[in-house]
């Protein structure tokens, strides 16, 4: 039995790893192609066969993308995306923490009704309510602005629901102990509930940052000024209309740049993120 295990480990381990490596290569290949395409010249891309190894245009293409881009400098679009993703992630977290706090800890008339109303919005994806939302945002004069990009996406039934579930696992006695200790509700929220939720907050931040970063339809609709474009929609805007020739190396460089911030966020918050998903520290 023990022998078999060891043997299995010897050969099986190699096969397992081989399988995993092949899998990773298959998934990674398109990204590699994009990277290669971002380091060569336009004629090299267009001429078959496609190059498989990086060329010498790396700095040239990336500098061109960052500084001038096609419609707007990519640096500006990156910044816009960053503001939007941060705004959405932090805004969603703050709003849903507060609404979950209200729903779990306060008895007010219509508490269940409000919870179900929030819950109901889960069933309405952005696309369904996009036209009325556009009307409202336009009415407030928030087209082509950061607030227009951020506010309509801030309400979050998912995050509210998540925090509600977490708060409900916090023993009632803890809130009562804080009350006896003299903590008023917001003090309890700040001193006790918030620190206890920090792993959940971190996990949610990662998910919501990527959600915000990847927004496409909404920014496409409300930012007509190229300097307000976000990067994910901006890539699409770089595609030529009509007979223009696409500047593929620059587009590819932009795509690679667009991937970096989410990767950085995931990697830097990985430890907290996994802890938040796996255990809830009580």
């Amino acid at each position, binding site marked *: 039995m023990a022998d078999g295990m060891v043997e299995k480990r010897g050969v099986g381990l190699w096969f397992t790893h081989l399988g995993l490596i092949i899998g990773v290569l298959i998934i990674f290949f398109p990204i590699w192609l994009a990277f290669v395409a971002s380091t060569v010249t336009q004629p090299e891309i267009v001429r078959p066969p496609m190059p498989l190894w990086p060329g010498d245009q790396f700095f040239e293409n990336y500098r061109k993308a960052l500084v001038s881009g096609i419609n707007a400098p990519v640096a500006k679009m990156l910044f816009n995306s960053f503001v939007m993703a941060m705004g959405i992630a932090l805004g969603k977290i703050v709003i849903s923490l507060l609404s979950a706090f209200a729903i779990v800890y306060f008895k007010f008339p219509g508490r269940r009704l409000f919870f179900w109303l929030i819950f109901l919005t889960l069933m309405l994806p952005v696309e369904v309510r996009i036209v009325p939302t556009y009307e409202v945002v336009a009415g407030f004069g928030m087209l082509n602005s950061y607030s227009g990009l951020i506010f309509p996406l801030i309400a979050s039934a998912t995050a509210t629901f998540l925090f509600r579930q977490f708060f409900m696992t916090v*023993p009632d*006695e*803890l809130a*009562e*102990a*804080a*009350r*006896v*200790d*003299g*903590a008023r509700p917001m*003090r309890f929220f700040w*001193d*006790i509930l918030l*620190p*206890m939720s920090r792993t959940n907050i971190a996990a949610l931040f990662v998910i919501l940052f990527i959600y915000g970063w990847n927004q496409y339809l909404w920014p496409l609709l409300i930012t007509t000024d190229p300097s307000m474009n976000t990067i994910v929609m901006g890539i699409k805007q770089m595609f030529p209309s009509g007979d223009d020739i696409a500047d593929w190396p620059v587009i590819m460089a932009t795509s690679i740049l667009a991937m970096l911030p989410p990767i950085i966020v995931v990697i830097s918050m990985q430890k907290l993120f996994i802890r938040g998903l796996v255990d809830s*520290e*009580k």
Partner: protein
Amino acid sequence: MATLKLDNVKKRFGQTEVIHGVSIDVKDGEFIVIVGPSGCGKSTLLRMVAGLEAVSSGEIQIDGTRVNDAEPMDRDIAMVFQNYALYPHMSVFDNMAYGLKIAKTPKLEIADRVGTAAKMLELEDYLTRKPRELSGGQRQRVAMGRAIVRKPAVFLFDEPLSNLDAKLRVQMRLEIKDLQRKLGITALYVTHDQVEAMTLADRMIVMNAGVADQIGAPLEVYENPQTEFVAGFIGSPATNFIPAETLGDRPAKVARVGVRPEHAVLADAGTGQIQGKLVYAEALGAETLLHLRLQSGEMFTIRQDGTVPVPADGTLTGVDWRQSREISFGSDGHRTPNESAA
């Protein structure tokens, strides 16, 4: 330290009344234990005093001031919870200091008070630890420390020892007793363990389904239970109850007669007050518990000294006791005065 007064305090949840009017005057420095079976309303009563549960009617006074509508923090009370309710992300020090911090106590004084409490509770080595790094007994002590540092007028305990194992429970019981002597605290202490009640209480409140059946010093309650419920609940093994008509020769208003196991002795078959058959005997060393089945089919327990010989199981035997030790109850479950009693 302070006095506490409950005046006909009642509690309703919606339409159901769960506390039917409890009154007591607690003197300064008195340790009151509330004891009763599960669901009788002990916690609810305590939580009303704490301010965590609204009072439906009646009045609660701390130091002569009505506090019915005061927030817990304004009542000058501290509470020790059954599950300790320690803040999981704070160190032992911060747990104990939290109330003081909120009250904006100067830093030096906080350190001083927490230090004193930690020393008293032997927690000095653990001040930087988180609650999850402590044993059950240590957590319990932190919870007590959190109450002590605030120097409240009244201490409230809700079954603070029920999550500990038997040995630790005895140890912590002694520590609480000791602490109470040192600090002279006014306290309400909820438990369903009668040993805790008997040993800790200056006076105890025996609760039965939302009613304070009897309030008095432990031994007084033990010797003079005012209701059948109290007689049955306080004392272990429980009091034996015999219908008065099977005994004959009792006043007409007596419905049932209570006899404590230690007051009954075996007698020759055919003699004594009643007859029974020994079902089994539990020899506990210092004492032996004899379980008999009476002719009426009911069980009867006798507690006798461990050195007294025990008849074989199945033996028919008489049971005797001094009539003056009987506790007799009317048909309403209330005590009827013993005419024969001296």
